């Protein structure tokens, strides 16, 4: 078979294989099988889109020309991945929480969902990536022709080859990159295919390397002995260019649209970064280990004038290792295809989300966004964008192909996208960075990049003429693109990096310091910079949006099933068993974030804004971000509240403990008092019964008297025990009440009849209020009478007036009946008021032998059981006890 046909066959088989792998992976992922697809290994391998055909072939070329310089392109990413904990982890976390779909989306979302910024970054990315795609096409056609150069066969022109490659790539990318609108914008099929391509690349380069070192030469020392002594430049690798390349490559690993796509957007599990942090540098290490030996072999084995960029293939070819050369070709093919596929997906997402969709929204401003199928529009826009991007790359290749302009475009493109870096870093680490500053910084850097590097790189063929490049515009030497303001740096790249990145950063920082962010920017800045922090969702505020409208819009963007599922779940969360959820704050926030996963933050914001019509940032939002430490303060306030509560609880516990101890003490006192009270009658009973037993000659009168004392004392003892029992029953609530409707007057009559003797003994005048006694109460009459008896006899006992009086008055309020029992004595001293209701208490002034001191405590317990109260009311004259009874 002719070499060209053989190559085409190999490529076709390879591509079909990729299709199958991508298809199986996509299907497996959709069904939840093939979990290994989401393993850190696949993630790490997918990162290898960093190694394009430009690095696959070009690294050897670079090594042949500039020695170790090529290593810097790999060391930059190594440093960034070593510091994953600080930068990449934060980016990935932000990417996930904010549903970021591209680098343009990240920048726009951070700076207040600004579509202007998104468009600027998208355009920059397209300008920076198109030449890069052209470069891949050139590498592929070059390798094709190198393989078939000696065959003498009539082969299609490079342009035709490039055309078919571009078409094939477009088909693959459209097929797997835009199959569906995933809410997370992840493409399992593509990522898996890329991981496979990564392995092919590595195996190809390692095989060629091993062949060169141990096949062509005789081990490492032999290959280095063939080295041109000038190659390593005496080991002087630390030059301004070395530093510049390291800087550029470390920014490129984040800012290149395709790298952002695989590192942040396609990342499904954050911890994969931990593995990638060492595995990806290791991959790069493997990719560059044999670059120098291959370059040396190419220089020493191949005729002078052979293209160093193709050594990877031409060295095995010269040694008649066609199989190995074919593998190398496949490696280059893999590198080119994977780069183009991912770049096209990333760019098409950006173009459709940030240019096509906003444009369509503006054109249809009058119409409701729900009235058209956004999903179809978006998918169509993406497919067209992919075709457009590849067409752009192809035309770029057609125009500049084969010139130096294309060969050097790799680093130039790096610097172009690196202009996003200040705004990106400032955005995620500095809350003070503003949208105006980001726009100013990026455009300044971009303009300087175009003027000092990109446009002059065409060598006078595009916009800037050769005279302008040599002598400055209008002959003003100070404005020479390669020596701006007379800055004399021989290396154009270093010159351009210093100017563009330096001014970009400067303008970005100064503008930030002199501008004020809008409310929505401040909210976003807090969410980006404090992405690891806690945010309590604010809810409650209702939006004017109709849930039906929202559902229709969500169906258009997220797809029918996803949208309905989301709405049902939210409704359930809101506690609605059926129907649509209310458009609360948190729900709207979630919707917007989910939309952003499909159409980008700025567009999602605009679409929901059209439906709700209200202000996008509420007063609460503004208040929440008004103080930048709001989140922290809120948290500390919560902590403070918790600790206060703890202190309060501790205080209550301490109080309860104190009460318990007091109760214990009271119990002891009570027991000793009870024994004391029991002892007194017991003592007299014993004494008199001893007299009765021991004395034979007792007068009948004496006998009668003594046994009378014993009898009285035993009665007193019984009463005391009854009282104690009564009290303990009542305190435990075990007392049985005989509640019935009774006339209050009859109860008072009973009480007075019982206390008649006491009253007459002391010649006490009793006053009653018969008119008001005609109240029917619902209570236990016996118990109430007991209380009244106790109060009346107390009054009779302790009243110290010359002409003692006891008055009983009644009254009723709305909810209770009041019964006052008052005397005209000296009352109870203030110090004793608290004591009278305690058991066995003896008041300081009076002492009564007839009472065990249980009367008032029992009365109070009775009233408690009757749901009423018994209180002492201090008055100007005499004691007043008040009974309240519920009606």
């Amino acid at each position: 078979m002719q070499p060209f046909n053989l190559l085409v066959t190999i490529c076709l088989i390879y591509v079909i294989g990729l299709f199958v792998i991508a298809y199986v992976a996509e299907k497996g992922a959709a069904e939840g099988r093939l979990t290994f697809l989401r393993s850190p290994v696949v993630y790490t391998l997918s990162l290898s889109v960093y190694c394009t055909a430009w690095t696959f072939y070009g690294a050897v070329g670079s090594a042949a020309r500039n020695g170790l310089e090529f290593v810097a392109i790999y060391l930059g990413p190594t440093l960034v991945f070593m510091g994953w904990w600080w930068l990449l982890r934060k980016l990935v976390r932000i990417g996930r929480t904010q549903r970021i779909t591209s680098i343009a989306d990240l920048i726009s979302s951070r700076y207040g969902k600004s579509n202007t910024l998104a468009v600027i970054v998208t355009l920059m990315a397209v300008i920076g990536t198109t030449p890069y795609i052209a470069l891949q096409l050139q590498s592929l056609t070059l390798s094709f022709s190198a393989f078939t150069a000696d065959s003498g066969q009539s082969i299609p022109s490079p342009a035709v080859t490039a055309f078919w490659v571009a078409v094939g790539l477009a088909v693959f990318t459209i097929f797997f990159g835009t199959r569906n609108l995933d809410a997370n914008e992840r493409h399992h099929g593509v990522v898996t295919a890329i991981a496979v391509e990564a392995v092919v690349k590595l195996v190809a380069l390692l095989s060629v390397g091993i062949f060169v070192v141990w096949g062509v030469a005789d081990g490492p020392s032999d290959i280095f002995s063939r080295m041109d002594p000038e190659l390593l430049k005496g080991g002087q690798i630390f030059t301004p260019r070395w530093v510049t390349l390291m800087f550029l490559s470390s920014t490129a690993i984040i800012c290149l649209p395709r790298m952002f796509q695989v590192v942040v957007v396609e990342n499904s599990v954050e911890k994969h970064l931990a593995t990638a942090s060492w595995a990806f540098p290791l991959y790069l290490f493997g990719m560059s280990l044999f670059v120098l030996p291959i370059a040396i072999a190419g220089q020493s084995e191949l005729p002078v004038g052979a293209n160093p960029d193709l050594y990877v293939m031409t060295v095995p070819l010269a040694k008649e290792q066609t199989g190995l050369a074919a593998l190398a070709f496949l490696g280059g093919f893999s590198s080119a295809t994977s780069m183009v596929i991912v770049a096209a997906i990333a760019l098409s997402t950006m173009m459709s989300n940030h240019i096509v969709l906003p444009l369509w929204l503006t054109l249809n401003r009058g119409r409701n966004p729900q009235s058209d199928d956004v999903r179809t529009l978006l998918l169509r826009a993406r497919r067209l964008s992919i075709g457009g991007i590849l067409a752009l790359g192809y035309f770029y290749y057609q125009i500049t192909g084969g010139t130096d302009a294309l060969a050097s475009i790799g680093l130039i493109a790096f610097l172009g996208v690196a202009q996003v870096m200040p705004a990106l870093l400032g955005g995620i680490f500095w809350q003070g960075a503003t949208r105006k500053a980001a726009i100013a910084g990026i455009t300044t850097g971009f303009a300087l990049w175009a003027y000092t590097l990109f446009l002059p790189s065409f060598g006078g063929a595009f916009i800037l003429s050769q005279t302008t490049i040599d002598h400055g515009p209008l002959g003003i030497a100070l404005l020479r693109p390669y020596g701006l303001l007379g800055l004399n740096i021989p290396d154009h790249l270093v010159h351009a990096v210093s100017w563009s990145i330096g001014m970009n950063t400067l303008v970005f920082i100064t503008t930030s310091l002199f501008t004020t962010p809008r409310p929505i920017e401040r909210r976003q800045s807090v969410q980006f910079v404090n992405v690891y922090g806690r945010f309590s969702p604010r809810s409650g505020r209702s939006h004017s949006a109709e849930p039906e409208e929202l559902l229709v819009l969500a169906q258009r963007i997220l797809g029918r099933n996803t949208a309905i599922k989301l709405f049902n779940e939210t409704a359930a969360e809101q506690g609605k068993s059926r129907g649509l959820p209310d458009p609360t704050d948190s729900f709207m926030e979630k919707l917007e974030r989910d939309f952003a996963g499909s159409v980008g933050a700025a567009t999602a914001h605009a679409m929901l804004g059209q439906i709700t019509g209200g202000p996008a940032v509420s007063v609460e939002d503004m208040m929440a971000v008004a103080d930048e430490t709001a989140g922290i303060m809120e948290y500390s306030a919560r902590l403070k509240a918790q600790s206060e509560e703890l202190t309060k609880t501790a205080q209550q516990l301490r109080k309860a403990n104190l009460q318990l101890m007091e109760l214990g003490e009271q119990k002891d006192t009570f027991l000793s008092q009870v024994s004391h009270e029991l002892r007194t009658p017991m003592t007299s009973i014993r004494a008199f019964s001893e007299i009765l037993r021991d004395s034979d000659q007792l007068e009948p009168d004496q006998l009668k008297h003594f046994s009378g004392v014993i009898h009285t004392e035993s009665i007193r003892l019984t009463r005391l025990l009854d009282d104690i029992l009564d009290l303990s029953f009542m305190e435990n609530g075990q007392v049985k009440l005989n509640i019935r409707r009774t006339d209050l007057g009859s109860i008072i009559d009973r009480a007075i009849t019982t206390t008649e003797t006491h009253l007459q003994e002391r010649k006490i005048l009793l006053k009653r209020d018969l008119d008001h006694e005609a109240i029917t109460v619902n209570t236990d009459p016996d118990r109430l009478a007991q209380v009244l008896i106790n109060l009346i006899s107390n009054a009779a006992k302790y009243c110290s007036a010359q002409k003692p009086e006891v008055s009983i008055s009644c009254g009723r309020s709305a909810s209770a009946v009041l019964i006052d029992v008052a005397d005209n004595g000296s009352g109870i001293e203030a110090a004793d008021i608290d004591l009278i209701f305690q058991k066995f208490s003896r008041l300081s002034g009076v002492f009564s032998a007839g009472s065990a001191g249980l009367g008032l405590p029992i009365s109070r317990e009775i009233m408690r059981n009757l749901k009423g109260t018994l209180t002492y009311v201090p008055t100007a004259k005499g004691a007043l006890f008040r009974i309240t009874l519920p009606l």
Partner: protein
Amino acid sequence: MSSETSSFLERDQQAQRKRKTREAAAFLPILGVILLLTPMISVFTQDTRTGGIPNAVFYVFGVWLLLIGLTFLIAPRLQQDDKD
């Protein structure tokens, strides 16, 4: 020593270890910059050879491998740290 004190010490030691890991992680990229991005590297990359291989190549690739190894050692601990 009571069990309360010993558990406190253990916790303290764990916290110390975590902090050290994070500090080491912060230091790694700085170490990389010091080893690869300062004029100092010229000291190690004179035009001499070791075992037939130029020292510059040895140095660059050696440092690279060393940095990968250190990252390999620290990454799992950082990840564990993140879980807490």
